[in-house]
């Protein structure tokens, strides 16, 4: 059964909803800019902490975190839309009408990616205007945005899985909080070497730390453990694909 007609229809509808509704579009663009401003602007003196040695400067250091954060949360925000579709009854009609229901998950994932790409574009332009130094070449930058895109896919598949199981907007905190916390339990403000105590232990075990380090390295032009980072990102996406597909079956069973 062809998957594309369903996927493109769901993606088109979701993107149209987002881009014609300022209350959905504006927060997903403003929040990353706001975090970028607060961190890169307010904490730039942190670059003078002994041992801080990121070559592209603190603005670039924070840009990568905010880019990855916007990717993951962009996926989660699209998951809110899935929950809203279930609450309004639209998702049940969609399930009935779709010849290939896997296309529904693919459609939401495409919409999440499209939505995030706009946020990433705005964020990148603002960072460059703010004087961000880019040490990496074109291949490095493609690598950075690809890494973020994989995180975006993981975000929507995680949130979509939750939305299809719980089928209510009240599941919002369940979708958002684990992602938010996992991101903040990484070396957000300083490199891993400068963390101390419990946060160092947690950040070392946190897979997002490797993605963040590789992303920062790509922007600076000297990425560490690239294969490990891509392997982790792809693994997360695959695991959450299974989670989302099981969520879809759960929604089908609920009728």
């Amino acid at each position, binding site marked *: 059964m062809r998957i594309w007609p369903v996927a493109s229809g769901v993606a088109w509808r979701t993107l149209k909803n987002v881009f014609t509704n300022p209350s959905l579009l504006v927060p997903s663009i403003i929040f990353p800019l706001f975090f970028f401003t607060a961190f890169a602007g307010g904490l730039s003196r*942190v670059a003078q*902490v002994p041992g801080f040695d990121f070559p592209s400067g603190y603005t670039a250091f924070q840009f990568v975190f905010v880019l990855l954060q916007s990717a993951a949360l962009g996926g989660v925000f699209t998951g809110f839309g899935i929950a809203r579709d279930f609450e309004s009854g639209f998702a049940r009609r969609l399930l009935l009408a779709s010849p290939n229901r896997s296309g529904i998950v693919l459609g939401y994932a495409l919409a999440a990616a499209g939505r995030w790409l706009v946020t990433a574009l705005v964020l990148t332009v603002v960072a460059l205007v703010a004087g961000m130094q880019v040490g990496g070449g074109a291949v490095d930058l493609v690598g950075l945005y690809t890494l973020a895109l994989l995180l975006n896919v993981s975000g929507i598949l995680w949130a979509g899985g939750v939305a299809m199981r719980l089928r209510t907007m009240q599941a919002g905190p369940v979708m958002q909080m684990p992602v938010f*916390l996992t991101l903040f339990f990484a070396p*957000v403000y300083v490199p891993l070497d400068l963390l101390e105590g419990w946060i160092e232990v947690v950040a070392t075990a946190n897979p997002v730390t490797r993605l963040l380090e590789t992303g920062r390295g790509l922007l600076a032009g000297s990425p560490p453990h690239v294969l490990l980072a891509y392997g982790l990102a792809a693994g997360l996406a695959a695991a959450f694909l299974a989670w989302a597909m099981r969520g879809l079956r759960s929604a089908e069973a609920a009728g």
Partner: protein
Amino acid sequence: MVATQVGAIAMRSIARTVRQPASFIPPLVFPTMLLAVNSGGLASATGLEGFPTDSFLAFALAVPFIQGALFSTMNAGTDLARDIQTGFLSRLSLTPLRGSALLAGTLGGVVVLGQVQTAFYVLVGLAAGVDFHAGLLGIAVLFAFASIVSLGFGALGSFMALRTGSGEAIQGLFPLLFVFLFISSMNMPRDLIEIDWFRAAATANPVSYLLECVRSLIITGWDGEALALGFGVAGALAVVAVGLAAVALKERLART
């Protein structure tokens, strides 16, 4: 008579908060989590020349007090907006209840929640080994300050609810309040903020003075300037916000 009315409305406000875990758990848990993350992640910032303490946890402990108060705005506003949307306020307007008693009672409930939050954050700080330099008297001053701040932010939320009559509009305030919190001296003393426009924005932001008042009691001891600025800003906020809320309530009751 008025005292009885205030007491009844305040009890209702408190009972409603206690019955809804979503109203009082996030104001306690989210600021504590942010405190844990920031104090862990920015501990090395205490190595910067001129940083006022060697414990970032002590430095950052001021943030939950003010962040919790910001939640008061949301709670007070959302509760009052719900009363308007469900018609409860319209029914109240048919009773002998005075408008001033309604406002005082609602804000009384918010202040009680503010005291609970303050006690929680003081205990978190003490449990984490923070030394309150202003001592026991300083902690008492902290509770008094928290009352004024909760009153001010609660009145602000009430004003918004009375003007808009919409819980969604109040929820929409949340990002704006966070902007005020983040563009402040929340994570770095103002004199150590390197970017000129950010330092200027933090200096113009009244939230910086609220934070610095609390922070002075924790890491400095007794700093007259920080206390005067903090109490001055909090007092002005409370007076203006209560005044605006009282006018808005009068207009709202006239309309119902």
